[in-house]
Every structure is written in structure tokens, then in C-alpha cells.
């Protein structure tokens, strides 16, 4: 009996074909983009020099650094607020289960337009319109926020249960009251979720719009790069990473408070238990995930 060795779970020929095609594409694209091993080798040497010049990080102009950071934070806060304020009505208008189609289509078109262009490109246009400075950054990030929050807000309104809306409407409530008591409580939790996410994202992007002159730390970073002050670059980057991580922690804390009903009493209780050596059991989902 000829033992035919067959692998029971061999790759199907389609999977093999796709793998081969991906590899061929990667080689073709790499050729198109002029990648070569010599460049890579040369680059490794440059990388060593770069790293050597980046460390130890040095804060050359502390004032510039702090001003830039403060401006970035201001841009992030104001852009989030402005974006949310504009996005809520537009998102509401875009919900097809509550609004007639003549209202929802334009709202959806606006949101799609805001989403389609990268914040930096929008920032370029606003720099031309309102000049260099923080205002251009605020407006650009607000446009991006409208795109993101508007889309998610519309989607979450479309997923609500209409029973509560009908119940409120049956009491003779006005349209505003239907929205306020029938719709908003149902989407509040998800709203907190994507508002904190958007703030986080605005914080990241606010450090970048400065590259095109729209205010914030990005301008400082870019000019440090152009002056080859790599130790200052390293210092800025480390500060940025620290701030972004702090922002992430803050966002997680806000979600714990609003979504998992974290309270002062819970925090105190946990501290108390830990001090007595009881060991705190994970109280909330948000706490448990990190």
C-alpha cells in the first residue's frame, strides 16, 4: 500500500494563490518606490548616528516647549468642544429613523465631507483662511471631530429602541421633549464613549497640525527637526508620549465614572480594603481591562 502522505489541514490553493500574489505585489511596489538594500544599509548607519544624537534628550528652550504644549492642549479642548457642539445637531438631523429624508441627506453629506479629508489638509486650508496660529488648528480639528462624532452619533440614534420615543410622544410631549427624554438618555453612554475617544484623538492630532503652521507644539517639533536639534526632538517626543498616555488614562477614568458608575465611595472603599490587606476584587469592567 503506497503511503500517500497528505497533510490534513493543508492550505487551500486559493490561499496559496493569494499569498503568492501579495508577495509579487510587495516586490513590484517596492521596485516602483525605488527601495534597495544599499539604501537600507546606509540608513542603518544613519539610524545609529541619529539615536546617538537624540540621547540624552535635552530641553533647549523650556519656554517654547511649555508654550507649545499649552497651545496644543488648548487646541485639543476647544476643538473637541466646538466639534461636539456642531456635531450633535448635525448627527441628530442625519438619523433616518427620526428625521425626514430631506433633512437627513444633507446632514449625512456634510458629515461624509468632514470625514473624508485628513485634518492636516483641512488645517492647510484654514491656515490660508484665518492665518497662522491656534485658530486654524482648532477649526481643522473641529471639522475632523464633526466628521467622527456626527457619524457615530447618527448611527447610535438609528439603533435606539423606538418604544420609549413613542411612549414619550404619547404623553403629548413636544418634539424637543421627545429628543430630550426619549432619545438622548438612550445614546448618552455611547456618546460619552466616543466623546472621550475624540478628545484623545484631538490631543494626538493637535501636536501635529503645527507642522503646517496651525499652532501647537508641532511647529516647535518641526523646526527642531529642521535645525537638526535631535536632542531637543527627543525631549519633545518623550513629553508628547507622556501627555498622550495621561490623556488616555483620563479618558479611561471618565468612562469608568460615566459608564460603570464609579463613585468616590467606591474608590474610598477600595483603598480601605487594600489598606486592610483584603485585596480589591475587580469592581468594574473598565478597571479590569488594564
Amino acid at each position, binding site marked *: 500500500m503506497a503511503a500517500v502522505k497528505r497533510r490534513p489541514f493543508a492550505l487551500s490553493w486559493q490561499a496559496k494563490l493569494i499569498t503568492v500574489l501579495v508577495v509579487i505585489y510587495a516586490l513590484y511596489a517596492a521596485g516602483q518606490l525605488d527601495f534597495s538594500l544599499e539604501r*537600507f544599509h546606509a540608513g542603518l548607519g544613519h539610524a545609529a548616528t541619529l539615536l546617538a544624537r537624540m540621547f540624552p534628550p535635552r530641553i533647549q528652550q523650556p519656554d517654547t516647549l511649555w508654550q507649545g504644549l499649552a*497651545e496644543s492642549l488648548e*487646541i485639543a479642548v476647544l476643538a473637541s468642544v466646538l466639534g461636539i457642539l456642531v456635531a450633535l445637531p448635525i448627527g441628530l438631523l442625519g438619523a433616518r429613523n427620526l428625521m425626514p429624508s430631506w433633512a437627513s441627506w444633507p446632514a449625512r453629506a456634510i458629515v461624509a465631507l468632514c470625514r473624508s479629508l485628513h485634518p492636516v489638509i483641512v488645517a492647510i486650508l484654514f491656515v490660508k483662511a484665518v492665518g497662522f*496660529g*491656534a*485658530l486654524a488648528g482648532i477649526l481643522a480639528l473641529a471639522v475632523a471631530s464633526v466628521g467622527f462624532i456626527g457619524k457615530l452619533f447618527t448611527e447610535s440614534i438609528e439603533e435606539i429602541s423606538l418604544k420609549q420615543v413613542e411612549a414619550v410622544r404619547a404623553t403629548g410631549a413636544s418634539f424637543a421633549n421627545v429628543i430630550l427624554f426619549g432619545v438622548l438618555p438612550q445614546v448618552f453612554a455611547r456618546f460619552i464613549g466616543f466623546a472621550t475617544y475624540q478628545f484623545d484623538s484631538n490631543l494626538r492630532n493637535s501636536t*501635529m497640525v503645527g*507642522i503646517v503652521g496651525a499652532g501647537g507644539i508641532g511647529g516647535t517639533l518641526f523646526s527642531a527637526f529642521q535645525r537638526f536639534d535631535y536632542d531637543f526632538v527627543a525631549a519633545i517626543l518623550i513629553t508628547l508620549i507622556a501627555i*498622550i498616555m495621561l490623556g488616555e488614562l483620563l479618558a479611561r477614568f471618565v468612562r469608568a465614572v460615566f459608564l460603570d458608575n464609579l*463613585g468616590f465611595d467606591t474608590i474610598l472603599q477600595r483603598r480601605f480594603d487594600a489598606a486592610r490587606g483584603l485585596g480589591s476584587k475587580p469592581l468594574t469592567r473598565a478597571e479590569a481591562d488594564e
Partner: protein
Amino acid sequence: MTAPATTMSGSGYPRVWQRYTMGQRLLRFALYLVVVAAIVQALRSVEIIPEFLYDAPEQMADLLGRMWPIDWSFYFEGVHGPLMETLHIATLGTILSVLLAVPVGLLAANNLTPSRVVNQLARLILVSSRSVNSLVWALLFIAIFGPGPLAGTLAIAFRSIGFVGKLVGEAVEEAQRGSVEALTATGASKGAVLWYGYWPQIRPAFWSIVLLRWDINVRESAVLGLVGAGGIGMALDTAMNLFQWDRVAVVLAAIFAVVVVAEIVITQARKRIL
């Protein structure tokens, strides 16, 4: 959730129903206060030059006026090539990032790598990759490899590691234990458990992560050229520096079209694959 706080009356029945306890309300109130304080502080200290704001409509009209007869003939001359380069940067960057991110994501998943130290180390890599913006990654790689698409591709790849790795790790952590335990019981090797136990479970999530990231990368690679990392951003930068706004309009239209096409592609691909 927590039990609602109630005020007991003499008879033992609650008279007033409150949704949140005192501590919860205090914390919420404190957060609202912080938000308002942050807004007020930001409004007070942000530097906005009102004169610039007043003539914004004028400037905008001027901009549109300069853009208007859009120089479509410029498309084949100077936009088509960079546009293709942008797509290559986005796609190659995505492929590269998947290759780099999957191992890190697997190391970050607690059920697959039962070592707290390794998990945290992998998560640190993922967080730092996400915290540095793609433009900053591009600047770093330009300093290393010189201006050009190589820097752009690597920037896209390194920026995507955090996103892909985090989501792959979470997908692995959510996988059902049943088939994994069955495979382990047969004495399957670690690789076999990974390939036959986890991969079929995370496959839909994996493809949707890759497609989503590709879509984001197409958008991001369009701006990388502004700092010199290749692609259509270089054409945009040149046209803007020369104040050729009619050409800028062509580039913006091209970017817009590519973004829309990418979105249609991923929607169709999701329907097919998932």
C-alpha cells in the same frame, strides 16, 4: 451596576428614588467642573487674532477664486504618478505593519503569553507606536533614510503597529477556550494551537482590522509628502509653495477621489470576506 440609593421612610419603604449614590454624583459633578474649568482656561489663554477672523470669508473667497478654473490638465502631468505612489506606500506599509504587529499582538495577549512582564512590554511597544503621530514617524525616518517613499512606507508601518497589534491582541484574548483546550489535549504544538485553535476564531476580526487600517493609511499617506516622505503630499506641497492654487485644487480633488474609492473598496471587501 450598583444598587440605587434610596431614602428610607419610617415604614421601611423607599420614598425617594435616586439613581446614583452621593459618591457617584460627587465624582460626576467634579468631572463636569473640570471640563468647564478646562474650557474656560483654554478660552482665556488661547491666542486668537480677531482681525484674521474678520477677513476669513474674504480670504476664503479669494482662495476659491484662485482655485476655480481647476487645472485638470495637470493631473496626468504631475498628479497621477504621485497618487499611485501614495497607494503603494499605504498598501506596502499595511503589509509590513501586519508582519511586524501580529507577533507583538500575540505577545500582548494574556491568554496566549501567560507572562505579565512580556505582556506589559508588548503593550508598551504598542502604546508608543500609537502615541507618535505618523508625520513624526515620517520625520524620524526621513532623518534616517533620507526623503522619499521609503521613509513614508516605514512611517505608515510603524504607526500602524500599535493599532493592528492592539486589536489583534484583543481579538485573541476574546477567543473561546474550547477548541484551544481540545487541541492542547491532543498534544498539539504551540504553532498548531495558534494556527488551528486561534486563527479560525480571529480571522474575521483580523481581516476587518487590516481593511480598516488600510483605509486609514490611504488617508494618512496622502499627507506624508508634506514633510517630504513621498506620495501625493509632495505634489501638494510644491503646488502650494508656488501658489499654484489651480493645481492644488486638482491634487485635493484627487485625494478626495482616492479616499472615497478606498472606502467603497473596503465596504465591498468586507461584504465578501466577512
